[in-house]
């Protein structure tokens, strides 16, 4: 976003008129903005961490969740803090740049003041700057990199592989990458990445003999210090995504094997041991309590922007657990001071990537332009205008999910709609055109078929209970790190702290209770079965948006929540 000073001041006036009390000093002071990225180097071993960029090469809007409920041991603990609870816990001033990056508070106004986030050209400038003061540093990518945009879907991940090589990624692990299919992943790893990016996963083995599919770890020398990075792919890939993409591989957390790997690298002299993980933060916190010898887990998957690490004590001492958000919005910077064979101290900073504070890197900008050029016409097609903020992230329906559900139900003439609870998907501000690119940001997957099924009330409840348990099971090892399935047409109540099979109640369609034995017409998309056929979701929604022309008064259907009093993962963010 490039603004003249005059436009900027007008915007500020509008923002304050809307009740957005800006911290005028930090917002207006160019000097402070210049210092925003002066992050003092520390120690002699530095790791830079990006994760879950979901192929967002261009700067985006991204609204953080208002609802991110923690249950069991996660109750009111990071990452299950939203809005002002998050700010208070981490001591972040309200209305600051950081508050805008980390919460949904005053999102629309703050967005207009502070601008878009991420973008690989801006990220490249920041990474170069950080690396200049941190010689020998490694750049680690936690995965979910080759999925999430139209261009990466249409190039089967090629645009992101090219961008990551230019960005200087040293090591990566994966999750959504696997939905490109085992052959494509193997081909990229064995050809394109060779000599550039090491692809690590200690927890992926063959179904038949349990042979490792990928290298489990990498031993690097950083300024004379031996550092081990171990890779942990998303353990539930064949469950959360269709297993037919990776029919011969099995995943899982593989705690025992991880401990063996940690012991092995320690035996080889590693003084710093770090797990590059796609487990999700709750799973990483539990893992850190049970596996010893890891100094840090640099985590992703759950898209939590967590400003400081959680310190987990275990039999080997302690492990720092981080999570570095999504969509290219943040870079995690972990600096260790290693002397006399051991870590003496550390510093961690989660650095937001503000597109209007960073000059885009020319070489990266050129590469991105080249990648996008063949598709520009298609990407820029304006489908409709939105008068509302459209977003996805949160435990229950976001407004963009509601648009998808409305389109799906209308097009398929269905009473009920299901849309997956993905955590990726960017945000639109009121007054923007919804382009094909925006729609693909919400839907670009390799199994986009729409489906229509007749289901009994009991079956519908069964599906909702199943997904709800994947979100709210008190044992993190039994969660999958997605949000609740987005439900259209159907009103319901949800009791996150109830046991499996007992969380969903008061299911009503047009005010009438759902009948367990009656059949209902249900539309959905993203089927798990390889044989499912159906029009891709983006065609269905695009057609509907073109007809609508303007989107307004979107009412995301969220369940009535039961038994969540005092939960600091729930705030209300004005639309």
């Amino acid at each position, binding site marked *: 976003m490039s603004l003249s000073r005059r436009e900027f001041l007008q915007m500020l006036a509008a923002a304050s008129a809307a009740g957005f009390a800006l911290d005028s000093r930090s917002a207006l002071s160019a000097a402070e903005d210049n210092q925003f990225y002066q992050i003092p180097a520390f120690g002699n071993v530095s790791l830079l961490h990006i994760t879950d960029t979901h192929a967002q090469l261009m700067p985006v809007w991204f609204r953080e969740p208002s609802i991110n409920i923690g249950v069991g041991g996660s109750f009111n603990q990071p990452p299950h803090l939203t809005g002002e609870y998050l700010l208070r816990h981490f001591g972040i001033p309200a209305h600051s740049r950081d508050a805008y990056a980390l919460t949904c508070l005053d999102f629309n106004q703050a967005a207009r003041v502070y601008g878009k986030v991420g973008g690989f050209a801006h990220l490249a400038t920041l990474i170069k700057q950080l690396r200049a003061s941190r010689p020998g540093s490694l750049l680690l990518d936690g995965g*979910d990199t080759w999925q999430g945009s139209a261009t990466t879907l249409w190039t089967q991940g090629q645009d992101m592989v090219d961008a990551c090589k230019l960005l200087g990624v040293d090591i990566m692990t994966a*999750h*959504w990458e696997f939905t490109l299919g085992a052959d494509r992943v193997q081909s990229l790893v064995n050809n394109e990445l060779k000599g550039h990016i090491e692809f690590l996963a200690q927890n992926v083995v*063959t179904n*038949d*003999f349990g042979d490792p599919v990928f290298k489990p770890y990498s031993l690097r020398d950083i300024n004379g210090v031996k550092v081990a990075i171990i890779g942990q792919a*998303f353990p*539930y*890939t*064949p*469950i*959360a*995504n269709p*297993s037919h993409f990776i029919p011969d591989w*099995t*995943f*899982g*957390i593989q705690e*025992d094997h991880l401990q063996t790997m940690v012991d092995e690298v320690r035996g080889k002299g590693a003084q710093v041991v770090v797990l590059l993980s796609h487990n*999700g933060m709750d799973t990483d916190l539990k893992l850190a309590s049970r596996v010893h010898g890891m100094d840090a887990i640099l985590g992703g*998957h*759950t898209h939590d922007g967590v400003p400081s690490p959680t310190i987990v004590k275990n039999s080997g001492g302690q492990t720092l657990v981080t999570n570095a958000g999504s969509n290219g919005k943040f870079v995690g910077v972990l600096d260790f001071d290693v002397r006399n064979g051991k870590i003496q101290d550390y510093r961690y900073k989660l650095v937001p990537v503000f597109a209007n504070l960073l000059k885009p890197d020319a070489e990266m900008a050129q590469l991105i332009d080249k990648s996008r050029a063949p598709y520009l016409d298609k990407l820029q097609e304006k489908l409709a205008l939105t008068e509302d903020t459209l977003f996805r992230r949160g435990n229950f329906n976001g407004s963009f999910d509601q648009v998808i559900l409305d389109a799906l139900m209308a097009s398929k003439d269905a009473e009920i709609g299901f849309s*997956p*609870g*993905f*955590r*990726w998907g960017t945000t639109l501000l009121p007054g923007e055109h919804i382009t094909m690119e925006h729609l693909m940001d919400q839907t670009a997957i390799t199994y986009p078929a729409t489906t229509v099924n007749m289901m009994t009330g009991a079956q519908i409840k*069964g*599906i909702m209970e*199943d*997904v709800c*348990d*994947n979100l709210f*099971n008190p*044992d993190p*090892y*039994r969660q*999958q*790190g*997605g*949000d609740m*399935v987005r439900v259209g047409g159907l009103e319901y109540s949800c009791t996150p702290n109830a046991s*499996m099979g007992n969380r969903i109640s008061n299911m009503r369609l047009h005010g009438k209770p759902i009948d367990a034995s009656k059949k209902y017409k249900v539309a959905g998309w*993203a089927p*798990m079965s390889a044989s499912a056929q159906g029009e891709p979701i983006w065609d269905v929604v695009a057609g509907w948006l073109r007809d609508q022309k303007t989107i307004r008064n979107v009412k995301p259907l969220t369940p009535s929540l039961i038994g969540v009093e005092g939960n600091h993962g729930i705030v209300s963010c004005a639309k």
Partner: protein
Amino acid sequence: MRQDRRAFLTQGSRLALLGGMIATGFLNIGRALAADWNSAAFTAKNMADAMAKSGYAGAAHSNDILLKVPDIAENGAVVPVEVTSHIPGTTSIAIFSQDNPNPLVAEFQFLPGAMPFVSTRIKMAKTSQVQVAVKAGGKVYINAKSVKVTAGGCGG
């Protein structure tokens, strides 16, 4: 040639495994192949009945039975289960999937000197406890772990 290895294993695994066990003398051929199939135990429709009919009723909890199962099954039709008994004098290991239509899934018998270790795959109807019972020195022991079986989808 992994493809060939897989094809070979799929077709020949049962025979090869059985042959190996006979060759090393670990399997009591008479008992394994005789017609004394415990039909009452394997067709029992609930856990208590299945345990009673297979002779494991009243088993005491033991952490010396090590049980390796996934927290969430990748495929409920083939859930990997690995059992090691550290209880001295173990003569049999039985695997139950508590909420299956017929909970008793398998029973393995061991002659003296055989290492009480089993690695197999079981079919699970839905999320439930996998119970593993052991006979040793005329006594019975049990340990359990829950395995989640989910329809999946909607991840991350």
